[in-house]
């Protein structure tokens, strides 16, 4: 494939200093700076929320534990959502199959660890395997629906998710499975305790998020992906093979789900429906962070992880999704375009 020599022009379409893939973004030179004000406001709100939780709980350890747990699980939510947001930003596809891809990766990881492979070494197989599956699914099933109305692609991805979930049920049965991490133990953090496997999953998620950011910002492939996201006709005119970019982007998104699946394998009970638990949260995170915004997805993941855990203190006995959706509705009300996306 050939890329536009005029990369600076494309880069100018990238707003906010974050890897946004917003197709509706207008070029605005002044917006290249990081939105510090917004970040400060969000951070201040989080600090206030934690402070109120201290007053509500009356026990420092409980709140510290909630914050630590929330941040750790939030990183994983962020990783799942990054794949989803990438696919949305570039292909304009609302991918309902994302959770199922994660479930598939969970079962793949389970199989690999049963065969004697260490769970984190399984990343070396699960990520490429899910990348390949992503290429196949995009080229084979979704390519024909590109440019068609949104509901066509939406129904196709919904169908794929049903097929994967039921195929897993058929071949593996509904019995819960698990992946054990040898040497997993509690690690004390500021009086709270977190399992080593959770910390490793969080660090893995951050590392992959960093790699994805560098890929999008610093490589020719990333520039091409952003160009297609900004204007696919324009990208075609300057010689970018959009079909390849579509396939690669979808595959990167699927690989994110694959990586997340392997990283969370020691934390969750592995069932064919495990993926759908992450799916709902991932959609919330994507909209919260700004559709198509990769860094927004990571920040959104952390916010949702915290909201889930602190909500358990504010509103004991309610579904963690309740506090998640309270935050979600508030954000939609105040910033309908998401936290890190400028209004069109």
């Amino acid at each position, binding site marked *: 494939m050939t890329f536009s020599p005029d990369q600076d022009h494309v880069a100018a379409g990238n707003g906010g200093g974050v890897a946004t893939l917003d197709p509706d973004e207008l070029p605005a030179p002044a917006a290249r700076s990081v939105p510090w004000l917004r970040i400060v406001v969000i951070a201040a709100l989080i600090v206030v929320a934690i402070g109120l939780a201290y007053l509500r709980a009356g026990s420092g*350890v409980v709140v510290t534990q909630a914050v630590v747990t929330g941040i750790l699980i939030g990183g994983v939510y962020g990783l799942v959502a990054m794949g989803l947001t990438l696919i949305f930003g570039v292909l304009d596809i609302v991918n309902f199959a994302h959770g199922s891809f994660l479930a598939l990766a969970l079962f793949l990881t389970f199989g690999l660890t049963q065969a004697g492979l260490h769970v984190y070494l399984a990343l070396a197989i699960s990520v490429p395997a899910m990348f390949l599956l992503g290429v*196949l699914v995009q080229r084979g099933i979704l390519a024909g629906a590109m440019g068609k109305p949104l509901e066509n692609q939406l129904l196709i991805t919904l169908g794929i998710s049903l097929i994967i979930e039921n195929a897993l049920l058929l071949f593996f*049965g*509904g019995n819960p499975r698990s992946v054990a991490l040898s040497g997993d133990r*509690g690690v004390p953090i500021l009086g709270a305790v977190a399992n080593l496997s959770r910390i490793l999953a969080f660090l893995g998620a951050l590392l992959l998020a960093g790699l994805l950011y560098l890929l999008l910002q610093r490589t020719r492939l990333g520039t091409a992906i952003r160009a297609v996201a900004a204007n696919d006709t324009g990208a075609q005119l300057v010689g970018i093979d959009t079909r390849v970019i579509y396939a690669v982007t979808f595959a990167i998104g699927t690989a994110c789900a694959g990586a997340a699946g392997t990283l969370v394998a020691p934390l969750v*009970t592995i069932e064919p429906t495990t993926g759908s638990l992450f799916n709902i949260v991932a959609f919330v995170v994507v909209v919260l962070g700004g559709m198509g915004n990769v860094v927004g997805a990571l920040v959104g993941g952390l916010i949702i992880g915290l909201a889930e855990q602190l909500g358990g203190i504010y509103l004991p006995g309610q*579904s*963690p999704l309740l506090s998640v959706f309270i935050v979600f509705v508030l954000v939609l009300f105040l910033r309908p375009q998401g936290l890190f996306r400028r209004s069109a």
Partner: protein
Amino acid sequence: MRKTWTATLALALPLALAACGGSAPAGTSNGGGGQSGGTIKIGSLHPLSGSSAADGQQMDNGAKLAVEAINNAGGIKSQGGKKLELVSADTQGKPEVGQSEAQRLIQEGAVGLLGTYQSAVSANVSTVAERNKVPFVIDVSSADSILAQGYKYTFRVQPSSTVLGTSGAQFLDQVAKAAGKPVKQVAVLHEQGPFGTAVRDAFKAEAAKAGIKVEPAIAYDAASVSDLTTQVTQVKASGADVLMVAGYYRDGVLAAKAVDTIKPTLNAVYGVANGAFDLPQFPKEVGAPAEGYFDANYHADMTKPDMQALAKLYTERYNDQIRTGAVLAYDSVQVIAAALEKAGSADATKVRDAIASGEVPTLIAGPGTIKFGPTGENVNATPILMQVQGGAPKQVFPADKAEAQPVYPAFKSQ
């Protein structure tokens, strides 16, 4: 591009068909059987797909084995040796699907229904059964409210939430007192639905009678919870000496993992009708920290030779360990079959009367046979106490059902 598309479709299609076949075997297998006059149909309604598929399939298998056993023994003798036919339907764990599937099975001629695992689904199916005057035997679903409607056609084999919570508190008090370390304070972690709340209330009321303080009671949403460490930290901060957990499998495992991480000072983790702590795969998934976990739950009586034979047959046939849910489904089919035998007719109303007045032996651990009271509750339904010992759940209390002695305090080092 078109070529790849076709090739992928060709690959995907058999997979899709296979998936459909897996999730709805019932619909395909009984399509042509509507007219078979030689058999008596019993409808089995369980979640064969969705998040409870493992339990639903177990229970459906249990019902199949019961029908097979009855047919091998000569069918319904009072009706000229007529054979039973089990028609299975998938509720997907959804109340509205369970309701429409129950209606379908009745229209196809089922004279009795059994099911359904989820209380919400059972509540809807019991309404359909009442309207159509077809008896419905609940194998698993513990919500008290189902039988509080005054329905005449619904019966329950397993203990209700109230019985589970009350007996659970009594067992805990007795075991702790026998060990010379009476319980002072119990923290409760329960799922927020009708099941968890009813168990909590009954447990709390009975514990209060024994002078045990129940605080705090923390609820969580079993469907979407991803971590329970914050909740277990609250338990640790409260200084309770026993943690009671009422919930399902996945959340039970999360609770155990959180207890292992936070390490609160507890004498015991004590499940009441917990969907995880008395299953053989629980110690496998959680590992060594699962040792010593209690569960007061309805349970198959492994001291009975018939039960051992059924467990062996189940493993041979389905390559899996039998769960109590499957045994309850097995018993429920026996209840309907005994009523068919007694009624001498396949008329649903006569079958209902025969169930109400009948008495059927059971494979579940309890004080006697299955016998229904005026509201349709099994009067002899009771839980027993199980404990994970040596990597497997063992029956430990009451003494006449015990395979091993209860170990209390359950944790040595803490």
